[in-house]
């Protein structure tokens, strides 16, 4: 079967607002929800939507991300007709090819896309938490005979000035784009999800490159260029849970929302599963002294303390008389005895020694970095 659509997941960004959580790993590889990494949502959406040809564009600290995505087999994206491919900077006869922006990353990978020879290219971001049927958006794109369809979602009017906003006419055609406008004319925020007709987009990217005017970014350069040329750009409205976990606070609150068994993301829905590349580990062991309520615990955990309203990722150890509340603990963290943690994110492989207290607040979530050690002899002050 010929490839109709290539999905490009842009996963190269650092996500610097996540601070030490993205020092050594790219944002889409940040752990989420006990058993996942952020990119699992975009990859699972691709798999569930039948978009089997996926390019994952990576650049910043990609080791863990690449290892996680592998050949895509965890998401069923390693078929004879469709596969996941990691795309990273490379060199060529023309020189070194780093990716300077979202559109530039696509420009640098024209060869990859051309090899698949698709009719459409779908641009996705690797760092959003949501469930979406991309096939429906593609159907809409075809129906409207659009050359570009932008995924949008209505946001509260008071928040609209924080987003790229799309003003549409009555037919949902986009007639204006405002990046973080002071006085938004619309509350339809761009989700950073685009469907392009490939031949058209390629022409824009190549022609402008030839004129030395690089179209570096989709929002800043490509959409305005499309608007200038009166292309058929349509807005596709998405209703449902969608979250950009770009800051410590939003990462923490997205996890707390995820924890709710009534949450609309419904992680247990067998018809739209979120896949991940899980480790082979032991069952979760809750000992005699454990007390666990309103929490998610993952395989490989050994829990002797108290856990309230928290997500504990795989292979975490929690010692006796420790208490974890309103927190998200990433995989392989080791928490000693008599530790108290509240409103915090504990990084992968962190070690929290006996007797330590880590107390955050709603406005100031405490963060312990990956492999960081807190308390104990090594850091006694």
């Amino acid at each position: 079967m010929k490839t109709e659509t290539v999905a490009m997941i842009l996963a190269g960004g650092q996500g610097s607002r996540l601070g030490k959580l993205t020092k050594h790993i790219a944002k889409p590889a940040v752990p989420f929800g006990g058993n996942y990494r952020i990119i699992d949502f975009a990859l699972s959406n691709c798999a569930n939507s039948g978009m089997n040809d996926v390019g994952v564009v990576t650049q910043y600290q990609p080791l863990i991300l690449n290892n996680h995505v592998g050949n895509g087999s965890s998401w069923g994206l390693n078929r004879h007709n469709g596969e996941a491919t990691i795309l990273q900077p490379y060199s060529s006869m023309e020189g070194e090819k780093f990716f300077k922006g979202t559109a530039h990353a696509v420009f640098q990978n024209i060869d990859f896309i051309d090899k698949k020879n698709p009719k459409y290219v779908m641009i996705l971001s690797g760092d959003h938490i949501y469930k979406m049927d991309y096939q429906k958006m593609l159907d809409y794109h075809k129906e409207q005979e659009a050359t570009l369809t932008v995924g949008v979602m209505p946001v509260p009017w008071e928040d609209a000035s924080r987003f790229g906003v799309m003003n549409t006419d009555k037919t949902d055609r986009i007639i204006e784009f405002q990046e973080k406008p002071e006085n938004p004319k619309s509350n339809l925020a761009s989700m950073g999800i685009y469907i392009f007709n490939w031949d058209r987009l390629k022409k824009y990217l190549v022609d402008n490159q030839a004129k030395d005017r690089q179209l570096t970014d989709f929002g800043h350069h490509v959409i305005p260029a499309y608007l200038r040329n009166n292309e058929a750009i349509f807005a596709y409205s998405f209703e449902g849970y969608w979250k950009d976990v770009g800051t410590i606070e939003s990462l923490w609150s997205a996890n707390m929302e995820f924890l709710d068994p009534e949450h609309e993301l419904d992680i247990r829905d067998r018809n739209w599963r979120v896949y991940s590349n899980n480790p082979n580990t032991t069952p979760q062991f809750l000992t005699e002294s454990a007390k666990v309520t309103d929490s998610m615990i993952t395989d490989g955990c050994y829990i002797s303390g108290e856990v309230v309203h928290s997500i504990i990722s795989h292979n975490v150890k929690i010692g006796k008389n420790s208490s974890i509340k309103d927190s998200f603990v990433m995989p392989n963290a080791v928490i000693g005895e008599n530790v108290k943690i509240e409103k915090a994110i504990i990084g992968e492989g962190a070690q929290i020694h006996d007797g330590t207290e880590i107390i955050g607040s709603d406005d100031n979530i405490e963060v312990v970095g990956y492999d960081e050690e807190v308390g104990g002899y090594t850091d006694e002050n």
Partner: protein
Amino acid sequence: MRTKIAPILNLVEENENLKPLTNRRPVASLPFACRYRLVDFPFSSLSSIEAPSAALFISGSGHSLYDHIRSGATWGLESSVGGGVFTHSHINLKAELEDPQYQGNYYDDHYHYVSRSHAEYVMIMGSNMLSNIRLDSLLRFHEKKDSDATVIYKKIKRSEVREDSIHSALIMSEKDNDKIEGIRPVTDTTDPNDSLLLNMEMMILSKDAFLNYLFKAKKENLDVSVKHIITYCHGSEHNIYGYEYTGYLKVIEDIGSYYQANMDMLNEDNFNSLFYRSNPVLTKLKNSAPTYYGKHAEINNAQFANDCEVYGKVENSLVFRKVTIAEDAHIEDSIIMQDSCIEEDVHLKYVILDKHVYVKRGAKLEGTPDEPIVVAKDSVIYEDGTIEEGE
């Protein structure tokens, strides 16, 4: 280092005393410790020494086993490199069988597998001796002793196996403690406090010794079993040694020992011995979500797999994947297998629920530590405790 070893998994194992759990699965497929099946343990041992292939001999159709093992990729048994998994189902023990056509296949299958494997050694294992063996240590012992055949044993109390156990014990030479001089049924020992050296029915032997035995076995219509090979080695000029295993062991020979093995995992020493002190235990990965524990959940010394939702009280129990336990349900000293659903106000104690059992609101069921109640797959348990058995 990739080991030049041809493993044979002899999974034609006695299962009468394990019914109804073995009604539709071999012993090797028995679920264990929330996430595993018994066959994961020998496979994980083999994975650690990077065995490139394995031959399986199974009685019955092996349907559940095939679906678990698939290509063997979990344990590094790839098909395009090294050989992969060779499966032989509907194997009967020779003693039970008169039809020479089937017997021909039985020996030929063994012969072809071993002769084509480029291996120096043959390893024979089963699945009913639950343990986690470091095969690299065994291999070093075998080579250091310049042994033709080395059998794994463990020192146990007579009481650790059934009174009428079908297993056997080794007799070691007095001159050389490591040398096997003979073999006898464990039933020869009657005092429950006596020690004996249990034959764990796992052995390594040189390819030549194995092929020599096979030739004899075919002529005399013998099973390819550790017991018979020990006897054969004594009759011939082969050196045969015993290698002592000191980790966790449980002989899975009836419902009682199966129940106890699972309960043993709630003891940290046993749990660590089996899962953390030796090879990592690998099982087929399934996509899963974390387990959710509700606002009023009460858990006390219990193990769970991912994908559960627990709102009630669970004590001294093991819970497999995709189990729901409603509020005010109370599970004690029980094993709840995959896909079971337990409604409100249920009370289970000393119970084993096989897969996909539905327990209706208010039902109470209580066995004893020695005789836990076993509920077959797909059953429904009604409020009054009556059980409608799954088809």
